[in-house]
């Protein structure tokens, strides 16, 4: 049973020089209680997807395709319906929670406001719910009376998570939720998210540039490059034996302590991710691909199966292509 089913989603930003494609025909689904990790570098379109699912992108942004959340197409909804879906069915945890909290309103009041905006409740109910939520994210209930500046960065991110959970959503979209945090705090927040997800049976879209984090929290992994999902499959398999050369390079960019292969040789690719305004011909990864073939420069690779429940967009996976990626 899938909570979210996205098919053929394309998003273009409107700029003075014309539309810039940020997401180019992306399809994926998230089953109930499942965590899908969405990985990729800056500008690959991953955050655009996160915002686009709830139509939180700037007005005028062009979107096409289908985003079916609990059976209803979000892209076809009227604005009033949209308001009902946000928070109650799906909510978002952004990176940089510091800026998302109003500095002059007590944290508890901000959470209560989020609850009241979506369901009628008495003062006493919302207060009890706020206390419950704070304890759920590992903060004492009495901290509801504090102002945001009395919280550390990690604590603010916990408050944001509490707010995201306020209306019992089915799906939580976490967009780089730990990126701005320090290593220790990052580990705490990550554990909290994973525990909450399991306890509450949440479905989650976890967006980050850090593949090594995803390999730990995600059940399935989707890797994006230049607006497309180039590989998707079970997290441990995708990370452990990538089918797409880009996934392989990205995985290599996160050295594993103790692995001799990384000593004095940090992994990664040469060159930079492409500018969405000037995408390379054929496979958009071909200028940086270590295994590029002639055909890659002209043919845009379709999706090929790459094992059970796995797919990748790479001509190496085509029948008769030279040996697929070494695993």
């Amino acid at each position, binding site marked *: 049973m899938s909570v979210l089913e996205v098919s053929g989603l394309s998003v273009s930003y409107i700029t003075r020089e014309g539309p810039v494609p940020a997401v180019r025909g992306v399809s994926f689904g998230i089953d109930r209680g499942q965590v899908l990790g969405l990985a990729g570098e800056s500008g690959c379109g991953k955050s655009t997807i996160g915002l686009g699912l709830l139509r939180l992108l700037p007005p005028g942004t062009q979107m096409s395709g289908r985003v079916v959340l609990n059976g209803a197409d979000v892209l076809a909804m009227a604005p009033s319906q949209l308001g009902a879906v946000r928070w109650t069915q799906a909510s978002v945890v952004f990176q940089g929670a510091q800026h998302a909290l109003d500095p002059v309103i007590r944290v508890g009041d901000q959470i209560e406001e989020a609850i009241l905006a979506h369901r009628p409740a008495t003062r006493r109910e919302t207060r009890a719910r706020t206390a419950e939520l704070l304890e759920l994210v590992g903060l004492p209930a009495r901290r509801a009376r504090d102002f945001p500046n009395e919280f550390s960065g990690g604590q603010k991110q916990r408050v944001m998570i509490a707010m995201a959970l306020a209306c019992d959503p089915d799906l939580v979209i976490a967009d780089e939720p730990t990126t701005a945090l320090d290593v220790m705090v990052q580990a705490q927040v990550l554990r909290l998210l994973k525990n909450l997800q399991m306890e509450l049976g949440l479905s989650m879209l976890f967006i980050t540039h850090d593949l090594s984090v995803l390999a730990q929290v995600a059940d399935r992994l989707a890797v994006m490059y230049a607006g497309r999902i180039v590989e998707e499959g079970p997290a441990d398999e995708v990370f452990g034996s990538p089918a797409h050369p880009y996934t392989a390079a990205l995985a290599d960019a996160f*050295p594993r302590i103790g692995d001799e292969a990384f000593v004095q040789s940090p992994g990664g690719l040469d060159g930079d991710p492409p500018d969405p305004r000037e995408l390379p011909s054929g496979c958009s990864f071909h200028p940086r691909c270590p295994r590029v073939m002639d055909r890659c420069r002209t043919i845009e690779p379709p999706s090929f199966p790459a094992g059970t429940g796995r797919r990748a967009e790479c001509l190496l996976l085509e029948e008769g292509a030279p040996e697929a990626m070494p695993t």
Partner: protein
Amino acid sequence: MTAILPAPDRSEVSGPLLRVDDLHVTFAGRHRVFERHAEQAPARAVDGVSLEIGEGEVVALAGESGCGKTTLARAIMGFVRPERGTIEFRGKPLAKNLRGYRREVQMVYQDPTGALNPRQTVYDSVAEGLRIHKVPGDEAELVDRALARAGLRPPERFLLRFPHELSGGQRQRVVIAGALALEPRVIVADEPVSNLDASVRGEILRLLLQLRRDARISILIVTHDLALAWSVADRVAVMYLGRIVEVGPTRDVLLEPRHPYTRALLDVVPDAQDAGALDRPLLTGEPPDPTRIPEACRFHPRCPALADGRAAAAGVEEACRSDDPRLEPIVPGHLAACHLAHRRPAGFRVP
């Protein structure tokens, strides 16, 4: 040795190229000239650090934010004045005039976008150091060479660009080229890749390693990422609240950590190969605050070895709560500031 400009005489170097000895950097609490504020406690950002960097050596300085690693780097650059302690370069303490020193010790910054003046072309940014030091020779040629060494080839494609026309990785290369133009002996790199995309990080790190190989440039790389240290460093120094708590060869420190704090830091490195990584215990207690450094061992309020009784079993609990441990060798070259580590027979590992 590859073709590099005649660098200052290197024969005098015996022992480490750069040596920091008992360095203290304190930031005063809030205070203004004509106002009287409630005095805030001073922050002891660097609180007695000694560190040596040999010629052609890559040392990683690791720790959480607020541990003083960046302040230490900035003190080495002469951007902040130490309260006490010495910094020696080629065996001589730094003179009051840092001009000569600043030719030889260069910094690479975390945010290459901010480190380049948006109104200057790549050419001007790279030539800036040459002009300041009135380096003899053909400026255009020196700039070309620096760009090429930093991997921006062909140089003429980049000379006249402005920073906003470059990618993050290219900007960082321009910063590195600006440093290389002066033929430095030491590069202090403060989180040089943390603002870059994952796939681009490797090229910058490989470039730094290549400079060490080809020109024997020493590199101090400040990072919060121990996995990065694993892939580039010869030695790792771990800082906690203004002090180095463990230092030694990369392999020893990261595979056989002796200080419980190093162990804790290693435990939070995301490890895709280890499914149980998320179940490992985390450090508890307050995050480190340099305005309130605990007495005795500065790590003892958070120390898991003290909390779970290992310290008591080894008979050092008393010491942990009363004595400030010194950074001393456990085996030659591998030092730790931990009472427990020193009580342990050789070969004993932190579980």
